[in-house]
């Protein structure tokens, strides 16, 4: 279909800048995009009859990676490494 209505996974690599241009970057647009992403993740992995550990474990792993990324500066400081 048209470029603006496709999801990120369906966009080919060469069309990525064009697709980014059609994106809505206003606060409402960003909020709507975040909400759509969360609801699609929620409906796929958490809102099922027989889920497993996968639903929340992926969220926890993402949180671990994010917090590691935020603290990388501090962790890699030599003073921190020596004090262990």
């Amino acid at each position: 279909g048209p470029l603006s209505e496709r999801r990120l996974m369906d966009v080919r690599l060469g069309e990525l800048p064009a697709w980014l241009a059609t994106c809505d970057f206003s606060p409402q647009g960003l909020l709507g995009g975040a909400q759509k992403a969360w609801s699609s993740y929620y409906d796929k992995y958490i809102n099922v009859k027989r889920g497993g550990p996968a639903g929340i474990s992926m969220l926890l792993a993402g949180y671990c990676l994010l917090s590691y990324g935020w603290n990388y500066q501090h962790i890699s400081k030599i003073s921190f490494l020596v004090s262990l």
Partner: protein
Amino acid sequence: VVCSVLHTTRPLHTTQQCLAPLPPLPEKGGEVRYGLIPEEFFQFLYPKTGVTGPYMLGTGLLLYFLSKEIYVINHETVAAACILSVIVYGIKKYGSDVAAFADKLNEEKVAKALAVKNEAIKDLETAIEQEKKEQWRIEGRNYLFDAKRNNIAMLLETNYRERLLMVYNEVKKRLDYQVAMQNLKRQKEQDHMIQWVEKNVVQSITPQQQKESIAKCILDLKALSKSAQAAL
């Protein structure tokens, strides 16, 4: 908490879709390998690199991060390893029990909802039966009206006959009165006449006639006694 905040921005009633009955929840979630990486990733790499592709990618990335010190090994690594091992052990050992418990809770909820639905269906069915029975009863209204008509006819007949009887009685009373009047009149006339006759007769008996009649009576008696004696 996060999901409830974000769900308030969900658009309501913007599509033509009917929201009830809701489609049932999917049975199983998306496939995830090792609890961390979705199957789509492996399928995505399969055409180009086959089965071992993602594992090679993972190993390569890990070694790269370790060697370039993008991932530093410190006390947190040890802590993470211990925590992860405990978590994996816990999930492997008690996972099925927790799943069974959650399934049981779900079952109870579903059973309760189903019971409510069946209850409602049963009540409606009994209501339908009673309605049909009422409709069948209404078909007998002809008999009801016939009975009522008979009752009314009987009442009218009774009333009519009562009044007829009353009329007959009244008329008879008047006629009897007339008859009694005539009888009374005739009797009075008779009595009066008899009295008058007697009075006149008594008056007409003069003393002379009285003596003569007494003498005649005595003569008669003597004759009678004679004839009686003769008969003996």
